[in-house]
């Protein structure tokens, strides 16, 4: 791990898992190639040597089985962390995720609960094509009983993952592949400080435009905000961080100030999660303070293509976000 504290997301996630495992014996990590291989993206590199094969458990290629095993272990006094190698393969495990883990506490009457975390990398940009690049957060967000976290910085990832592991309920923790190897823009605090789930973060404050973005789109929006600042356009960026439950209050407060709202998600546009942000704004009284139509940027409604020039066209890029932002501010004064 690098000495300075500008960690990558992979390092931050590893640090959070390591702290949690040192704090409590009931935490363990299970997944395909998480052991000696260190995970497909190196997130658990070195953890097997530190904690041994009983706490860093390599599994066969059986997503449904391992998520189900995590549910059973969670019902029996453990706090499993399951890594699914690509979030696309949560499809294999949806029964255990949506029909079992999410419902058990409620459906069985409350005596049992399922303290587990399912971690998986999502998103495009690696040239891995349609079956290894999806953003499936909407599936989880629409299932009552799941908490869904989409960190956009290493520091958030660490604090949120520690909270997710503490949480007595199933938490889906979606990391972005492209952020794994990038150093964060902020230092990651040492120590075991938690960041509570369900609290949106005002990443940056500005009076002209409110941008609500998730996952890697937050990172891109920040680059846009810097560019716009150079032209005197001040942008507020809000990262919900937990898309379920969603903390809308900071969004409402900001829109009341800026009067302009743009939302950005990587996932496919049609029926995507980000709609929830728009609808909660339109349902609130804040709505009256909008001076511009709400702008939605999202992935195209297509499977993610392979070739880089096609893949880039499939999801919002910095240029797209910048253009849209400038247009709103220009057209609506």
């Amino acid at each position, binding site marked *: 791990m690098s000495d300075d504290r500008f960690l990558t997301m992979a390092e931050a996630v590893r640090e959070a898992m390591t702290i949690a495992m040192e704090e409590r014996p009931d935490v363990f990590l299970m997944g395909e190639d998480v052991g000696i291989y260190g995970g497909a993206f190196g997130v658990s590199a070195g953890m097997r040597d530190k904690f041994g094969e009983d706490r860093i458990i390599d599994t066969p290629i059986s997503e449904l089985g391992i998520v*189900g095993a995590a549910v*059973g272990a969670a019902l029996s006094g453990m706090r499993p962390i399951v890594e699914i190698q690509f979030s696309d393969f949560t499809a294999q495990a949806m029964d255990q995720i949506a029909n079992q883990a999410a419902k058990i*506490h*409620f459906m069985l009457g409350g005596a*049992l609960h399922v303290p587990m975390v399912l971690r998986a990398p999502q998103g495009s940009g690696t040239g891995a094509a349609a079956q290894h690049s999806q953003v499936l957060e909407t599936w989880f967000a629409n299932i009552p*009983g799941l908490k869904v976290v989409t960190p956009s910085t290493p520091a958030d990832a660490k604090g949120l993952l520690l909270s997710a592991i503490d949480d007595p309920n199933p938490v889906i923790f979606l990391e972005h592949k492209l952020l794994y190897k990038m150093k964060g823009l902020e230092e990651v605090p040492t120590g075991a400080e938690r960041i509570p789930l369900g609290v949106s973060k005002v990443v940056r404050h500005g009076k002209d435009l409110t941008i609500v973005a998730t996952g890697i789109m937050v990172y891109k929006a920040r680059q846009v905000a810097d560019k716009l600042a150079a032209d005197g356009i001040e942008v507020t960026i809000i990262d919900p961080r937990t898309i379920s439950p969603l903390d809308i209050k900071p969004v409402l407060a900001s829109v009341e100030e800026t009067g302009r709202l743009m939302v950005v998600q990587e996932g496919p546009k049609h029926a995507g999660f980000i709609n929830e942000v728009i609808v909660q704004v339109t349902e609130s009284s804040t709505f009256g303070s909008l001076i511009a139509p709400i702008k939605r940027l999202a992935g195209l409604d297509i499977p993610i293509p392979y070739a880089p020039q096609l893949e880039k066209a499939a999801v919002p890029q910095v240029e797209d976000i910048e253009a849209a932002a400038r247009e709103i501010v220009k057209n609506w004064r």
Partner: protein
Amino acid sequence: MAPTELLIGHPLASKELASHALLYMWKIRKFEEAVEDLFGRGMMHGTMHLSIGQEAGPTGMCMALQIDDQITSTHRGHGHCIAKGADLTRMIAELLGKKIGYCGGRGGSMHIADAETGNLGANGVVGGGVPIAVGAALASKLQKKGTVAVSFFGDGSMNEGAFHEAANLAAIWNLPVVLFCENNKYGMSSATSKAFKLENLADRGKGYGIPGETVDGNDVVAVYEAAERAVNRARNGEGPTLIESVTYRWKGHSRSDKNLYRTKEEIEEWKEKDPLPKFIHRVQKENLLNQAECDAIQQKAVDEIFAAVNTSVKAESATPDGLLAAVFKGAN
């Protein structure tokens, strides 16, 4: 009844054990009859999957388990739940949507669970409980608890991917789990002869390196003996066992079943193999219980069910308030 009253051991080992086995089989039978009656009288809502004819399996299996051993169950789970020691009143109350029901009326017949007796829950998903049991066994191994997990599932669930992935995990990790297949010849209308290209479903274990055993699921003694062997293997760290308990459901799959896929004759044949008279005859032959004692045990079961129904009917209905708050467990 309190779980602590549960007896563990061979059904023919003593008068107490014989009485226990007989009592539990009667409880299951009478419970199911009561459910059918409540349903028929429109007092119970939803659907029901009765296990009449299958009482020996859960009873024999659970007599080989300690109270802290765990089970996962199925949509046809009343028997497993009772055999593991659940409270009959809380069960009936659940079916009637009462506050005191095991799930507070939120789960119903397909979702009864009882943390106190290690019952991780019935499951509406075919095959859904198998990976969960394997996970419970993994926890037992990691925590060195020495407990065993048993997954009850039907023949039909063996063709689900969930069974496959879970069975393989249990095998390679040598987990303390018993895979208890209740082969009642059909998965809804689908006959095992059509859904499998196997004589004995226990042979499916061969594909995982898991020993399999086929037993007469209507003989509580045979089931117990197989269960004891499997539980011992599990506790001794020898890994999972697949038990195929061959039995039959007398009633339709659920309410909507017109039984078009099987003959009256077949059903009658199997009624001849009723596990209760079979065991009664055995215990009398072995002079463990006499007719009068057997009748008294049957009556005890009837009385317990009757009492459970009475209490439940009078109990307060569940109310919608607080549903949203019940979705997540609060920080602990």
